């Protein structure tokens, strides 16, 4: 049986990697990917805590994970839509070039 800590560590690792991705890449899409990774890491935490928690039958963590998956889907859709819109507007998805606050 795997201890909870190891799951949490993996989640933390994935979260850190996602954060790094969001921080170091130029491309907006990659930033989105990083954010998705972070969300997933959070989900993993939720599930893990649900699984090892005192009241798994209450389904709290599970529900949280499910809802966050749904929300993440929405977030991805909107985010990518924005990226495409920005691309159409500025002909680039490079965040370093995207530093003007008005069109």
């Amino acid at each position, binding site marked *: 049986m795997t201890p909870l800590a190891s799951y949490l560590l993996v989640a933390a690792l994935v979260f850190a990697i996602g*954060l790094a991705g969001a*921080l170091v890449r130029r491309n*907006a899409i990659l*930033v989105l990917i990083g954010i998705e990774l972070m969300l997933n890491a959070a989900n993993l935490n939720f599930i893990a805590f649900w699984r090892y928690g005192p009241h798994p039958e209450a389904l709290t963590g599970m529900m949280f994970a499910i809802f966050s998956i749904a929300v993440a889907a929405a977030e991805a859709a909107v985010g990518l839509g924005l990226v495409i819109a920005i691309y159409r507007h500025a002909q680039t998805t490079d*965040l*370093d070039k*995207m*530093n*003007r*606050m008005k069109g």
Partner: protein
Amino acid sequence: MQAATLFTPQLAASPIAKILWLIPAMPIVASGVISLLKQPRRKAATVLSIGSLSFSLLLSLIAFAHVVAGWAQGAAVCETVNFTWFQFGSTTVDLGWVLDPLSSVMLVMVTFVGLLIFIYSIGYMAHDENYTRFFCFLSLFAGAMLGVVISNSILLLFMSWEIVGLTSYLLIGFWYQKPSAAAAAKKAFLTTRVGDIFFLLGIVWLFAQTGTLLFYNHGAGSIEGWALTGLLAQPAALGLSAATAIGLLIFAGAAGKSGQLPLHVWLPDAMEGPTPVSALIHAATMVAAGVYLIARVYPLMQAGALAGGTTPALTVVTWVGASTALFAALIAVAQNDIKRILAYSTISQLGYMMAGLGLGGVAVGMFHLITHAFFKALLFMGAGSVIHGCHEEQDIRKMGGLKSAMPLTFATYGIGMLALCGVPIFFSGFWSKDAILESAHGWPLSQAPFYMLVFGAVLTAFYMTRQISYVFFGAYRGHNHAHESPRVMTTPLAILAFFAVALGVIGTPAWPWFRAFLDNRAADVSLHAFAEPAWLMLLLTSCVIVVLGIGFGWTLYGNKSPNAEAPDALERAVPWIWAVLRDKFYVDEFYGATFIAFYEWWARVADWLDRRVWGGAVAAVTWLFGLWAQLNRFLDTNVVDGTFDKGCEEISTGGGLLASIQSGRVQNYLRILALAVVALVAILIWSSRP
């Protein structure tokens, strides 16, 4: 649902009573649907409104038959269906509807006349581009009016009453592009509003006193049983009982709607609306609503009746009615606008109805209401047909000789005119007016109303003769040639004409069916009622009246065709009276000089106060603060700034540093966020150290 009657023990509401609400509902729904239609959907609008109204007519007839049947079996039908609208605290606000002789008769009248007028409007409004809107309003009006008729709760009645007022406003101002029409609409709305304020006061007072809004609620209603006695016991100002005071307040509302003195001013101007509107609203039904209201709350007015069967409230009603009748008749003599003449005659006839209520009770007033509704609608529609035929010409001096041009209109119009004059025996007008005169003659308090009414009747005959001879006899003085109106307009005229004659039958002294029906007595046929000397006397009187009026009128105007600009025959005789009458006793001017002037003056005063007094005060304060500000400025520039500016520079440099963080780069922000997270976690763990 339970039911109650004034006279007999309660009996369960019959099915027809249960579905009585459908009668007003149908037209209202229809108007709602029509309001969604596009303008060009004329046929749909027509079908909807007329279909719904005829359905209501059918239902009303059934209801009427039901009531008559009950009455014939000697059991007076007064079935109510009540329900609680909402409730706050212990007080409940109840709504409901009632089916009794009064409402049933009124229902049939309103739906029938209304239907005829709807049909008539098809022809009259055929060329108007807002046809659909017109029918929408018309249906809404019909629905609201029927609501007034059936409502058993004074609140429901008031609501319908206000909707009626609204529709009247909308319809008077139907041609709002005419400034005169818009003004008239506004005038009508405001004037009736004056009355409605009093009405509302009355309602509130009544509710406060009796704690119920229902008229009939098997003994617990506001105008029956203990409620009335309580009202009587309750004293109000200047020695009047609460019942009287409330009755008077309600009467004020009725006066506003029915254009009684002194609130009659709006009704003549209301003729700016399309003629069917004038016929339907401002002759047949709406203005009758006031009379109907008094009839509905009659127990309240009659409460604590003295020996002569009269009360202070009824006395007021009588005097107002009588004086209105005379007053309006006088004015009508000197008008030249065909519709205005009819309008003033309407006012005076309403005066008759009121007087009838005050003198002879519900039956008398209501009977005249019914007959008048028919022949006045007839007259208005005839006038409409004339106007239509003369290409929107309304000045009777520019007409004439139309009897050959539009024979059918002439015939029907003549019948209407004769009915209005009250030509004996053959015309309904005679019987109803006769009943009023009879009761006036028998009034214990004073004979003055009787003579006023008689004189009014003479004048009525006179001005109708004048009008008809101007319009139909002599030579045609208009420019473009007149033509008869289409079938769809003349047919209703014929029908109405028939009833203008026939309706008299139900109210003859020999067989006072109508009165018996309303007063819930058995109607017995006794032909020697005709032989009673009193009645013969009255017959004689009215003969004299009619002969006088018509003869006088005919001698003055008959069959001669004065050119349009020539002064009126009467004017030549007594110019000063003429002037007074033509200018309607200067009532409008009087109001203008008093109330309106007062308001304007008050507005000016307020304006002056604003500018001078308050404005001055404010200005003074401003000035003081200005002074203070000057002082501060002095201090600032010399004391504070020296130290402050330094700090500002420091801060701005710091701000510059901070601003460099605001690079607009997403990742910078994200980075800072992450750092914050780290810090937070660190703090968390640090603080949670064991």
